[in-house]
């Protein structure tokens, strides 16, 4: 029984004393042949007695089996992915149409006014050209798009606190929904290492566009979080690592237990204070 084997054990890959990641390991791990795990666990210092070993194994196995057995059909996290994508599509289209409307208005009035003032100017004109109606209809479309987008945002906010309460508390409902949507599901997000979470969405130019500026591709969507954007640029790397670490724990807790654990959030706040005190806010 060489030491190469212990790498496959359910208790080795995991953060010490963390039933969540142990459950994941029990579900996902594998090994060609069994080994005397209890004595190996004692040897490597994971536990100090056999009783302790079995009690940890029981907790983690129970949780893993419970989770996978109840996983059957519920996929509200996948539906929320569609909702947040629709919302982002609305934003993108709104942006495009706003640019179009303001260009059109500028040309039509010959003035450089903002949209509301231009619209007012042409609405009080006595002579309505045949273009007039189309300009107003474009404006109405824009309004209904933004009403629809806001309704969707409210819906996502209320749903997210059920689907992923901890992640939502820490990341805010929209960023939380975006992370789930990019990962594919809450399960997939929970199973990603925190390093991956940190750069999630980096490849996606849409979000750079949404923020109205291009960002360096090494920055994932979590860079829209104020803990990072309002932190001194020099410390953003640290902040991003800390945030993605906590968000990744939050995603796991949400995936496995689904109940809010306020301690997770206060841990994050403490950590952020520590980082910021090193360099002050921007």
């Amino acid at each position, binding site marked *: 029984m060489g030491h190469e084997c212990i790498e*496959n*054990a*359910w208790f080795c890959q995991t953060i010490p004393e963390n039933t969540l990641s142990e459950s994941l*390991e*029990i*579900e996902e*791990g*594998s*090994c*060609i*042949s*069994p*080994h*005397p*795990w*209890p004595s190996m666990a004692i040897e490597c210092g994971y536990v100090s007695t056999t009783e302790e070993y*079995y*009690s940890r*194994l*029981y907790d983690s*196995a*129970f949780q*893993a*089996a*419970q989770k*996978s*057995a*109840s*996983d*059957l059909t519920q996929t509200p996290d996948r539906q929320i992915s569609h909702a947040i994508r629709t919302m982002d599509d609305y934003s993108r289209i709104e942006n495009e149409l706003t640019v179009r409307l303001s260009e059109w208005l500028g040309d039509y009035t010959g003035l450089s006014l903002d949209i509301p003032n231009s619209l007012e100017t042409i609405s009080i004109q006595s002579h309505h050209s045949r273009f007039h109606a189309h300009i107003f209809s474009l404006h109405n479309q824009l309004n209904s798009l933004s009403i629809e987008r806001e309704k969707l945002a409210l819906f996502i906010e209320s749903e997210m606190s059920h689907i992923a309460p901890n992640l939502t508390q820490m990341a805010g409902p929209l960023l939380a929904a975006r992370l789930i949507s990019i990962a594919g599901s809450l399960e997939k997000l929970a199973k990603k290492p925190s390093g991956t979470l940190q750069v999630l969405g980096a490849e996606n130019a849409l979000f750079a566009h949404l923020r109205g500026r291009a960002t360096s591709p090494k920055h994932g969507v979590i860079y829209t979080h104020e803990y990072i954007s309002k932190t001194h640029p020099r410390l953003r790397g640290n902040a991003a690592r800390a945030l993605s670490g906590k968000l990744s724990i939050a995603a796991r807790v949400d995936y496995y237990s689904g109940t809010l654990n306020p301690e997770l959030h206060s841990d994050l706040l403490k950590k952020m204070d520590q980082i910021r005190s090193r360099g002050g806010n921007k």
Partner: protein
Amino acid sequence: MTLFADYQYLNIRGKTHLVTKGPPVYGESTKNGWRAWDPSRSKLGSVITQDIDVGLSKNVKVLYLGAANGTTVSHVADVASIVYAVEFSPQPMRDLLNVARSRTNIIPLLKDARRPETYSHVVESNLDLLIQDVATRGQVKIALENKRFLSPTGKLFLVIKARSENVVTHPDLIFKSSIEDLSQEYAILKTKKLTSHHKDHLAIVAEPLPYK
């Protein structure tokens, strides 16, 4: 009546029952913490009441394949020190989890017994007893694949359900070829055709042969 036995026979309300000690699970009759092990609901129970040594004794470590809702597993856990309970269907797993709530020596595993590599990182080696009752095609192959968990002095208790292998072949023929195939890697100690409640099932007790 032996004191502190892990299973024994006990008269409960005028009827002799095989009993184990532990919290009740399925509405079985109980007396002083002992609970009746109903042989009509458990193939292992029915074989034990026929005085066949299946290798279940105090503090053994067990791998149980096909744990289902935990009826038999609960009795095994009353006797054994640890029971790794493998079941691949989510519905019975939920009931099994309820049994495991009151018995922390049951390690529930939602796994496919045909793929032991998916739980070899959890289930330890050198177990004393492998119990298999999966009622699915390829029962002998599963017993061969899971031999890796058994100690050289351990035992296999295997139930072959004929209809799971093939519904047209006569059960006796299926039993015969199962025993043949199993004998490649196990020494057969005892076979017993089950009757009444467990018709067309064969119980086999065997010992692992050393690896060639």
